[in-house]
């Protein structure tokens, strides 16, 4: 087990190294640097930027050295917890990221807290009896909710609860300080989108287990139905959904961008998009690495958890 975790961590470091290097190489082009220079120096279009000003700017920012050298500097900085400075906001990237990550973390926490029990419950109940009314209902709800992209769900929820009923604020910019009510719509949007997928997977897994021969054995052994479901079926049926839920982290990070932009919630996703549109290299760099870290870490957790839950692999 420790060996598995170790090798996966090593793999993660490797992947992050490769990715940060590629990112550096990409954003080192003149095109991007000029764009930032223009944004920084203000006013001009890229074409109006004189070569002289540009060179001077490069020198001032320490950008005139070859990119691998800058990359090494950057890596050395990261090792000491220094992610560089944002060009756009002129703030240390680490501080900027930290606040935004806390915001997004809160959002994600609520999403998982609501989505996991809801989708597991629906999925298990539907999968217990294939073709039953509760199965059909779950299938219908989950197809419908997965078919609504986050942007559409966000719009529909906003129109109904914020614009129509006026129960909740239409955005989560929270200019007047923290407001829990503003978090409701973003959380609901993400829960609705993820719920369908996880519920369907749980249902499929449960249905497969219920059709298996060892469940037949358990029933023909004369065990009470409760025992068959709770002890024999559930454990096997929840192995697959567990990994899927953990991997949802990856999906969530994608959904977060849309939802945060739509609701103007100052979180990690919005930071990433703003940085990308501005060309704020260090922020993009750091945010991407964080995203990749979260994604790869969730993969490791799901792998390790799967191995742990499944005795067939654990004691192979």
């Amino acid at each position, binding site marked *: 087990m420790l060996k598995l975790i170790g090798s996966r961590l090593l793999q993660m470091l490797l992947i992050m190294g490769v990715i940060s290097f590629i990112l550096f190489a990409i954003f080192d082009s003149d095109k991007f640097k000029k764009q930032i220079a223009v944004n920084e120096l203000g006013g001009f279009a890229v074409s109006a930027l004189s070569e002289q000003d540009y060179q001077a700017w490069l020198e001032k920012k320490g950008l005139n050295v070859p990119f691998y050298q800058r990359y090494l500097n950057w890596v050395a900085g990261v090792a000491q917890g220094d992610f560089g400075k944002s060009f756009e906001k002129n703030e240390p990237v680490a501080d900027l990221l930290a606040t935004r990550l806390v915001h997004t973390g809160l959002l994600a926490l609520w999403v998982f807290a609501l989505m996991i029990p809801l989708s597991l419950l629906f999925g298990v109940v539907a999968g217990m009896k294939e073709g039953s009314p509760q199965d059909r209902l779950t299938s219908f709800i989950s197809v419908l909710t997965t078919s609504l992209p986050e942007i559409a769900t966000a719009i529909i929820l906003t129109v109904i609860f914020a614009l129509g009923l006026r129960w909740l604020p239409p955005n989560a910019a929270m200019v007047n300080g923290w407001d829990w009510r503003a978090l409701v719509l973003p959380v609901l949007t993400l829960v609705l989108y993820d719920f369908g997928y996880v519920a369907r997977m749980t249902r499929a897994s449960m249905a497969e287990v219920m059709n298996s021969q060892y469940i037949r054995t358990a029933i023909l052994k004369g065990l009470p139905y409760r025992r068959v479901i709770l002890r024999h079926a559930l454990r096997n049926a929840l192995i697959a959904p567990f990994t899927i839920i953990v991997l949802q982290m990856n999906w969530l990070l994608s959904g977060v961008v849309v939802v945060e932009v739509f609701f103007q919630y100052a979180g990690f996703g919005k930071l990433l998009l703003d940085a990308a549109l501005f060309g704020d290299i260090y922020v993009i760099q750091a945010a991407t690495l964080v995203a990749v870290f979260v994604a790869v870490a969730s993969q490791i957790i799901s792998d390790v958890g799967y191995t742990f839950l499944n*005795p067939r692999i654990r*004691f192979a």
Partner: protein
Amino acid sequence: MTETPIVEAATATDRTPVLECRNLCVSYFTRAGEAPAVVDFNLKLMPGEAHGIVGESGCGKSTVALAIMNYMGRNGAIVGGEILFQGRDMRTMTQEELRRIRGSKIAMVYQEPMASLNPSMRIAEQLAEVPLYHEGVSQREALARAESMLEQVRLPDPKRIMNSYPHQISGGQQQRVVIAMALLSNPSLLLLDEPTTALDVTVEAGIVELIKEVAAKFGTSLIYISHNLGLILETCSRLTVMYSGEAVETGAIHDVFDNMRHPYTRGLFGSIPVPGANKNARPLAAIRGQLPLPYARPKGCFFGPRCDYFVEGRCDQPPLMMHEVAPGSSHATRCVRFAEIDWSAAKASVAERQPVQRGQVVLRVEDLSKHYIIESGAAALIGARRTVKANEKISFRAHEAETVAIVGESGCGKSTFAKVLMGLEPASAGKVQLGEIELANLPVQRRDKHTISRLQMVFQNPFDTLNPSHTIGGQIGRVIRKFGVESDPKKVQDRVDQLLDIVKLPRDFAKRLPRQLSGGQKQRVGIARAFAGNPDMVIADEPVSALDVSVQAAVTGLLMDIQREHRTTLLFISHDLSVVRYLADRIIVMYLGQIMERGTTEEIFSPPYHPYTEALLSAVPIADASVRKRKIVVAGEIPSPTKPPPGCPFQTRCHYMIKGVCDVTPPPLREFGADHVIACHLEKDALEKMEPVITAGTAA
């Protein structure tokens, strides 16, 4: 009959039967409508009696077992008749009453032990559940009972097994666990649904022995469902033969085996290779035609269209009832004409044939070895490697027009050997010569068209042998073009037609897709494909083991006819000694990658034997009541090929094992006769003193 059945059929009529099925009808409801799976099934099982149900796949025998358990799945239902368990109709019981009976009064053993055990629960818990929920005993008591039951099913080291997960023990051990689970609450009825089909034959022998023993000890009634008549003969006192959902004949074992009174039963026996059968002197007779689909059964007798005794106006008039063969007898048949048919007349349809003279040596294998090196992920890091010796020093020759059989159980390396021959894997050492060409290290990509077409293969699994996306004609045609036999589309088409004629399939099959064919038909196409390039030698890897017996006979017959005609060398790989005895000229017995014994069929089946051959011969169930078998049950299971024992590979299970010799040095080759070789440490005279395992009695 070799042994006495478990308990003689109870003669007392005052006792209530354990189980009685009266006119039981079961149907499955599919999109195509109602498909009757079991029609008008009757059975009376007295306490302590063992009743066999035999039939080919799709005959409804497993459905009977599930109906007795009242577990029909979502789309099945009992549509008529009644099932009385100890005098009570199970159809009127509530779910709770059924639950109390299941697992305590009626227990079941399943075909696939691995799939029947919960993969994520320890065996201790799965066993302890039974007394815990049926008798309400304490956890400790339940565990203690579980452990003692594991001992009673002769599992070594019950403590370790209690603590294991199902995947950590072998298939034979899993089946013993399932049997232990079934016996834990001392049931009065034990249903066994093909309990040994998934196991190797030497392991099967042990399980069958165990079942007989425990049934006698606990006085349990058995219903033993199997496709194998030999197994039924060994275990049961009564028997029902099923065909297409109907019981066609039922009676005491000896009545049915010796005086069969239904043409299907007779056809079934005629297609089984029993010791007396011989490909030249007494060829097998297959049943013609095919099993009808459940919703397309003929009117009247379901066997009518395939029956030689079919008479219009009588056999096609429903309803067909069971007739007592003799008044008051328990032997009954569903044939209306049973009294008119001359049952003693030999089946004259298949004529005797001349043995074929073998020709020159076609294939020469010398000291061929194939080793794999396994580097598992973690082991690769620390440099740990394991060598798997899939084939070790294999030598033999095969002549033109000869059938050489390689026999062995799983893990014996017979399939690896085929791969090396076909050029898909390079040999590690040794030589393989096909004619003058050295093949051992000539991968298929580097063989020329002609060499490839000289050596072709027939595969095991009929559902896998043809590509489901292409038509039959397209697939055969591809071979013809690829080998350059023909290239003109018209001529290719002619050749495809010709090949379909050879394998006795209608020409319009060329346009069909594989899913529209039955298993036997697919295997015929596979044979046509192998012979499309006029090969010198054909390797047949278990070509009939996935088919029903009656179809098996037809396919082996066909294979041999074509071989005879083209004077092809046939290398027949099989685990089934009966089939091999029937069709092979020479036999190679393999165990864990090594040749244990090789010789002519005659030599293999009579002493001197290799101890493994001896055990194998004794393990094979034979469906002939007149044959006597010496019983040798080998201990344990086949070791994993990744961890072969030192010295002789068979030493762990051999009862002749000489300590300090067999487990240290590999066995020497002892030669008897021209080409009869035994690899064993036993001295020549010790080997020669062995008694025959199988002795044919008087003709049946």
